[in-house]
């Protein structure tokens, strides 16, 4: 047990609960709950997006991957930044101009609300659940390593906190928890990087030379982790197209007052996320040199302890406690963002607009939103408790693949293709969702590698074309003059911001 770490954890819990209390007084309407009253400024939202995105998987996971596998670990980092170009250039502004709270708002603009909202709510809840289980199971393991807390205790602790943030503080609390986390994470990562580079006379080349001397030049070359280049391409596609379809990232654009602020927020996010992922090389190679692979593997086979052990080696017990607390804050912020995205899909899309046909009063909508957050949180806690000891790392890949195959094609067609219609949207979302899940079920993630029916770990290279094909076929096999007529309105609104809420 580490008293220093416990103290820092307690400080973070108290700080975030304080934010929640402050936010709960300012959360009166559904716009407050889902979109923080559209009161977040561009740069604040940019930091919050980074907070939403830089999960414990990227902080602890990528550092470990690079420490153990060298160059290949870095490939993830590249995809995670370049993907924001799709968000920035294609999706963010039109989405902000034409929606209110969820991804489905934009789709329902020109398509039939009930079928489209049901399908989009389904894919949103699937993506958020996969992502959430991966985060929670990982979190349980990490907190066990860092603090010696039991797995079950960690999951319930994190679960209760995320429910409190979202149910009481809504999007405002979630946003500020993410901002606090992003600042802590960047501070920790910059400090670690500077200390690492200091060991090599602030010369990155010198660090590479020593890596090469210790582990051989081949450690710096591609091919250690991904033997099949197609695997790599498929993963690359999932990251590139999936980010712009992740509901918990997309709903962040509704928290800013207009499209211009949405644009500014992506720019801020890209600067922060880019620097962060470049620094993952310093953490990874630093850990490989200053801690050593044997010690990293001894603590955790997957390499998740690389960054905390590096902190201990460089700054002793206090720095270890600080980095552990940062990892804890990181987990909290990401899961809170996922809860509010799933709750919005259920309460706003499915309950208020499909079941109640848009007739629910403001009070009823608020009540359902809060209960939905509690429900989503409780279900996630139970699933994470069941999934203990399971290898769930593939779930993040699956979440990205579903987002890329089910959501992105439908978003793009809806914004730019006049002929696109309800049947196309529903078949597109369903084929993307089902094909991603089926392909993962028969992939090496869940079957013996030599028996797997589908050879790649990530299904995107096949499921994205399938999702697009579903959307195109569904569209061409039916006619919907209303959707074509309303296209012009959506097109002008989404591209100019005229009439945006």
């Amino acid at each position, binding site marked *: 047990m580490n008293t220093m770490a416990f103290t820092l954890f307690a400080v973070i819990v108290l700080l975030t609960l304080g934010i929640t209390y402050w936010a709960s007084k300012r959360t009166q309407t559904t716009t407050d709950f889902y979109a923080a009253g559209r009161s977040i400024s561009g740069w604040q939202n940019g930091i919050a997006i980074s907070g939403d995105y830089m999960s414990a998987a990227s902080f602890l996971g990528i550092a470990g991957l690079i420490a153990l596998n060298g160059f290949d670990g870095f490939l993830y980092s590249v995809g995670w930044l370049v993907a924001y170009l799709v968000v920035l250039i294609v999706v963010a502004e039109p989405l902000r101009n034409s929606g209110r709270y969820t991804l489905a708002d934009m789709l329902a603009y020109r398509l039939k609300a009930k079928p489209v909202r049901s399908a989009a709510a389904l894919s949103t809840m699937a993506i958020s659940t996969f992502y959430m289980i991966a985060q929670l199971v990982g979190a349980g393991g990490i907190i066990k390593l860092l603090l010696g807390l039991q797995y079950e205790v960690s999951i319930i602790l994190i679960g209760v906190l995320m429910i409190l943030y979202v149910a009481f503080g809504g999007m405002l609390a979630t946003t500020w928890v993410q901002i606090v986390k992003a600042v802590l994470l960047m501070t920790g990562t910059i400090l670690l990087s500077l200390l690492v580079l200091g060991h090599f006379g602030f010369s990155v*080349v010198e660090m590479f030379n020593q*890596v090469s001397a210790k582990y051989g030049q081949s450690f710096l070359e591609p091919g250690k982790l991904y033997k099949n280049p197609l695997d790599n391409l498929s993963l690359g596609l999932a990251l590139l197209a999936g980010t712009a379809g992740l509901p918990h990232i997309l709903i962040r654009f509704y928290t800013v007052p207009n499209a211009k602020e949405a644009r500014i927020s992506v720019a801020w996010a890209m600067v922060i996320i*880019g620097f962060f992922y470049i620094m993952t090389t310093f953490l990874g190679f630093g850990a490989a040199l200053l801690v050593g692979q044997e010690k990293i593997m001894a603590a955790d086979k997957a390499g998740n302890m690389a960054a905390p052990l590096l902190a201990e080696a460089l700054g002793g017990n206090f720095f270890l406690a600080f980095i552990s607390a940062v990892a804890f804050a990181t987990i909290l912020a990401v899961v809170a963002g996922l809860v509010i995205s799933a709750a919005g899909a259920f309460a706003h899309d499915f309950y208020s607009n499909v079941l109640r046909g848009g007739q629910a009063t403001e009070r009823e909508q608020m009540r359902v939103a809060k209960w939905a957050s509690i429900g989503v949180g409780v279900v996630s806690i139970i699933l994470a408790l069941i999934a203990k000891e399971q290898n769930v790392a593939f779930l993040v890949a699956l979440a990205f693949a579903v987002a890329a195959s089910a959501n992105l094609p439908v978003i793009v067609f809806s914004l730019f293709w006049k002929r696109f219609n309800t049947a196309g949207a529903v078949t597109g979302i369903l084929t993307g969702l089902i094909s991603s899940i089926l392909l993962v079920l028969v992939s090496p993630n869940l079957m013996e590698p030599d028996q797997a029916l589908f050879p790649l770990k990530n299904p995107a290279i096949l499921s994205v074309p399938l999702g697009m094909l579903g959307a195109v076929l569904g569209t061409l096999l039916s006619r919907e003059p209303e959707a074509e007529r309303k296209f012009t309105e959506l*097109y002008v609104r989404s591209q100019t911001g005229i009439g*945006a809420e």
Partner: protein
Amino acid sequence: MTTGSHRTDWEQIARSPEFRALMKRKRRFMIGSVVFFSLYYFALPILTGYFRFLNTPVFGSMNGAYLFALSQFFMAWVLAFLYIRHANRMDRLIEEMICKRKEKAS
């Protein structure tokens, strides 16, 4: 900005020469940049997966593969900067378009 009771004629805006010129520029930038960054991005897994020449050391032990991966970050930042400059120009065109329509209406 108009909403609610005040009816906006979307068809008419969509047909106006100003809007069409705006969309032509927006679309050109969008398609051009998506094609460019997709090619640049997928070149990394292709060149590192199927070829070996990027393994040549450039600075000390730092090889071409790492430098090319690193260049992706700068590519993304530069393109984001260019997009924002372009989008700010588009904002001004949209503002002019809205002003013109208001003048006509009054």
